């Protein structure tokens, strides 16, 4: 292949020319944060765009990471039915307190995530609550796709390659907060469902289709790590992930007047622990 360098030499022959070239380039892509958030092309129904704090479209095979205040509501939206969001949440007050999928399943006596389900830390507190869910197809058993898994399936798992693993992307997101792979516990995955058969077989139920969303409310100040990579049990031979929309706005943490507060004795104690911790910390 012959590369024509005429344009490069013409546009980059001085810093001024290089600057002009950079500034003249396009500023839109299908996968980008919208700043300010009110400029979102798809504001959540019922939410005043001016109240939005964050708006972003995460690329297939991409990731994002948010640092949010207690009471922030985060909407994850699967536009075309192919998004696959592997999510890890950590307390930004103490990142050793992070999502514990075992407690998240054991304490509510329920393996499948859905509306009202608390995402628990290993410290007896609720990090976030799923307050709305129009998908119902999620998974807290298989985690994000791993490096060895993607290498076996596609030959590559690196973030820069055509088939990044969910775990590799979570490691990148974590690194942006000074965290390492020690800080990435098993993840919860949204928009791709798995069910357990009587003999333990993990049955793929996949996507609920286009246009579903999941809303999380942060019950403590959080670091939220999100990878958008195919679920490990996705049976398609190709690497298929769709765009993932992310919005965030100010809401409020669960309090004793919310119906979900006392949905079960275990959850009520979890919210009591969380509220006591937050108030003691001056939040």
């Amino acid at each position, binding site marked *: 292949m012959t590369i024509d360098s005429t344009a490069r030499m013409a546009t980059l022959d001085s810093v001024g020319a290089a600057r002009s070239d950079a500034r003249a380039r396009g500023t839109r892509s299908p996968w980008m944060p919208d700043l300010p958030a009110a400029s979102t092309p798809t504001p959540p129904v019922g939410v005043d765009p001016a109240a939005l704090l964050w708006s972003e479209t995460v690329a297939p095979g991409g990731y994002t990471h948010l640092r949010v205040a207690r009471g922030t509501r985060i909407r994850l939206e699967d536009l075309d039915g192919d998004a696959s969001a592997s999510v890890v949440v950590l307390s930004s007050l103490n*990142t*050793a*307190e992070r999502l*514990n*999928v*075992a*407690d998240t*399943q*054991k*304490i509510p*006596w*329920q*393996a*499948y995530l859905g509306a009202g389900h608390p995402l*628990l830390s*290993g*410290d*007896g*507190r609720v990090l976030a609550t799923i307050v709305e869910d129009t998908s119902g197809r999620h998974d807290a*058993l*298989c*985690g*994000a*796709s*791993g*490096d*060895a*898994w993607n290498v076996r399936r596609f030959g590559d798992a690196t973030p820069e390659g055509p088939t990044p693993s969910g*775990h590799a992307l979570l490691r990148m997101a974590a690194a942006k907060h000074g965290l*390492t*792979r*020690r*800080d*990435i*516990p*098993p*993840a919860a995955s949204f928009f791709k469902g798995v*069910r*357990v058969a*009587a*003999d*333990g*077989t*993990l049955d793929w139920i996949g996507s609920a289709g286009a246009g579903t969303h999941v809303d999380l409310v942060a019950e403590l100040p959080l670091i939220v790590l999100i990878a958008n990579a195919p679920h*490990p*049990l996705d049976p398609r031979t190709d690497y298929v992930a769709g765009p993932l929309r992310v919005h965030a706005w100010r809401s409020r943490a669960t309090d004793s007047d919310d119906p979900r507060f006392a949905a079960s004795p*275990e*959850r009520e*104690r*979890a919210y009591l*622990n969380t509220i006591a911790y937050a108030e003691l910390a001056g939040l």
Partner: protein
Amino acid sequence: MAFTTTVPPRPIFAAGSVLDRSEPFVAGRIILDDDIAPRASWSAIVRAGDVFTLVDVGGNQSGDCLIFAAEDTSERYSAPDTLAWQGNAYVSTGTVLRSNLGEPLMTVVGNEIDRQDTIGGACSKESNTLRYGHHTAYQHACRENFLHEGERWGLTARDLVSNLNWFMNVPVEADGALGIVDGMSAPGRRVACRAERDVIVVISNCPQMNNPCNDFNVTPLRAIVTRPERAAR
């Protein structure tokens, strides 16, 4: 040293409990052979090729287990990788216990109960306040054991992930209901895992003070590491 203590009573097992210490699952040179007292922790390096046998001496005594790559503990047991690779929610003979990078750490080469759990996680002082109430917060728990034992290897709360629960029965029912139910183990039942590389195995002998799955009778576990005889060259 005759003394009394005002520390609240710790669970012990009843005199006359049926105990069966069994024997190593595979033949070979015995590298380690330790009893793990009720509610205590244990850890050791298991070298590549060696076989770790855990004996449920008194029956239905949960051995909560974490595994780390010895040369770099940031690579550690991963329940989700283990389950996704085998496409099944339960651990049994042949299950490859994989790391957070998806690499084999150990392989289950022997298992004498129907299925083993890796979904239910460890008990903790904190989670016990949710499951049972704040009156249990003073009690000892597996997470305490992991933190205490982990200190030996430089491991901290950052290193605690979803663990294995040897000899514990945690089914997932059709509607997603999940919980610890009556155990399927018995005195002397064993599980055995071959190390695929040098690993640190950490065990918490679960205090189980609030779950009737072992009749509130906490019994010892026996941990054995065997080096199988190599074929003569």
